């Protein structure tokens, strides 16, 4: 991707966000009492003002994007490795699974599964260490947060830790 493409895409995205906010989100999801006398005190004033500035930033990004002459691709700090999208999709699935499993499995078990799944997703060269850490790290964190910090860590319906 070149700088020109990046700036232009960001400009369009910013304008789209601003349009979505101004036309859909603010009118429908920001409530304002009918007796507000002055616009600057209205709960919608600040979101509208920020939306306007976002649109302006988008426009400026578009202008600078179009004015950009260089076609040199932007340097990537870490290039994409083979199978990147599969792993990124896998990580997204792990996050969704964590959200769904937390109430049922509880935090320690869910985190153990998430740790192991993530380590293997990253193709760890130390599978045994990964499994040991997958059990120990969530347990140590459970002990700290539940026993030291007094946090009501969700226990789930399968196993209840002391």
């Amino acid at each position, binding site marked *: 991707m070149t700088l020109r493409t990046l700036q232009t895409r960001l400009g369009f995205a910013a304008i789209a966000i601003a349009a979505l906010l101004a036309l859909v989100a603010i009118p429908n999801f920001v409530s304002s009492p009918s007796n507000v006398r002055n616009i*600057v005190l209205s*709960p919608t004033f600040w979101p509208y003002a920020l939306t306007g500035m976002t649109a302006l930033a988008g426009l400026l990004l578009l202008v600078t994007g179009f004015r950009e002459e260089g076609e040199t691709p*932007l340097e990537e700090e870490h290039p994409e490795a083979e199978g*990147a999208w599969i792993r990124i999709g896998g990580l997204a699935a792990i996050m969704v699974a964590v959200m769904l499993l937390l109430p049922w499995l509880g*935090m320690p078990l869910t985190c153990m599964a998430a740790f192991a799944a993530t380590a293997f997703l990253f193709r760890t060269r130390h599978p045994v260490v990964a499994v040991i850490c997958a059990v120990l790290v969530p347990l140590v964190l459970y002990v700290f*947060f539940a026993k030291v*910090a007094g946090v009501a860590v969700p226990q789930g319906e399968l196993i209840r830790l002391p």
Partner: protein
Amino acid sequence: MSLWDSLMAGLSLVASFEAFAALFVGIVIGVIGGAIPGLSATMAVALTLPFTFAMQPITGILLLLGVYKGGIFGGSIPAILIKTPGTPASSATILDGHPMAEKGEAGRALGMALWASCTADLVSNLALILFAGWLASFALSFGPPEFFALILFSLTIIAGVSGESLLRGALSALLGLLLATVGLDLVYGTNRFTFGDPNLMGGLNFIAVLIGLFAIPEVIMMARNPTAHLGRTRALGGTKVTLADYMRSFKSIIRGSMIGVFLGSIPGIGAAPSAFLSYSEARRKSPNRANFGKGEIEGVAASEAGNNGVAGATLIPLLALGVPGDVITAIIIGAFMVHGLQPGPMMFVLNVDIIYGLFIGLIVSSVFLFIVGSVAIRGFRFVAEIPKRILMPAVLVLCVYGVFAVNNNIFDVGVMFAMGWVGYVMLRTRIPPAPFLIAFILGPLLEDSFRQSMLMSGSDPAILLRGPITWFFWGLTLLAIIAIARSVGRKLPV
């Protein structure tokens, strides 16, 4: 309360094993976090934050300050040994540190980095103690219009943390300001973007947003390329830094510390520009200027003094005005908030014991940094060898526990994951996350002070220019905008 009474109150609060142990452990965590490329001091502070919830406020904040200070020094270790700065602030250290490592003088370079860091840290802490109280007493007379002008000026911080593109930084800040509007309206109590969900009525949890924005994208980047971190570490070599080396670089260290204090006390400048300015000043004034860039020990000393001189000074605007000096102090604000403390001038009245306790802790931190740093230099090889493909899953699990612990709410974990993906998209599209976080923190304060001013004046905008203090901050804002416009004019793209 007299200075002596305040000092004694602070001492009574901080003179405990837990407080000093927290500070020491914090420095250890910070040095390790800073020394692992890709983890960074910012992420180390963000990940340590949840552990402070159960602690006494002073203990928790000292732990975080320890991580901050340790992290800034820790960043220099990989900068010298593997030419990868652990923190952006250590970028200048590479210039002479890595050539020294290539000549087999890594131990000497690291030793000088430590000595310069500790000296600059001490100078910076003394500046904090001297100036924060004075600034806070001045800020006690602020009303909503003065705070509005101050916060508006503070938002020009964004120019300093925008990185390569000011426009992308501005877009990031605007998104942060927009996200900060979620929740109940401050004046009328009506819903804004809550979508009927009670979880959103209090707004998005600050800790979930910041951990999502700074820690989760690194985990996602690991999925994108699990082997990107693999590199080669250099040996320390036999030579060590000597007192003669230190004395020869002393002028540059003190000059760098002063530059760090000055730039650190201005919100948003940060440690990286300070390190580069200190380095260039040292090169300009040094008799060995021809050797700079080829492995000159004075270059290492100057850049490390520049970046560590910032560490204490960034706390000046944080403690005195409630405005974060950089992104790490923006995270540290979270620790104050979690413990029901609001940094700012009133803290010097209501919680003077905590303020002086922090001052005492900070002075001790320079000594601890020296001890921990000396050990860390020898132990870096072990830190560097922690497999990142095991470290990152641990970071993910730590984030889940930490964010849940804030409010005992699974919803916050979802917010963190969502913000993680936002952060990843920002990383890929080169939108800096720091302006987003700073705007997310300052947004409600800005809106609140603006609307309070309007309520006070019957919606007359003239109140925003009501006296010398507001004029002063408007003037500074104007100057900052002119400076930004000039720098933008000099280096496109914006």
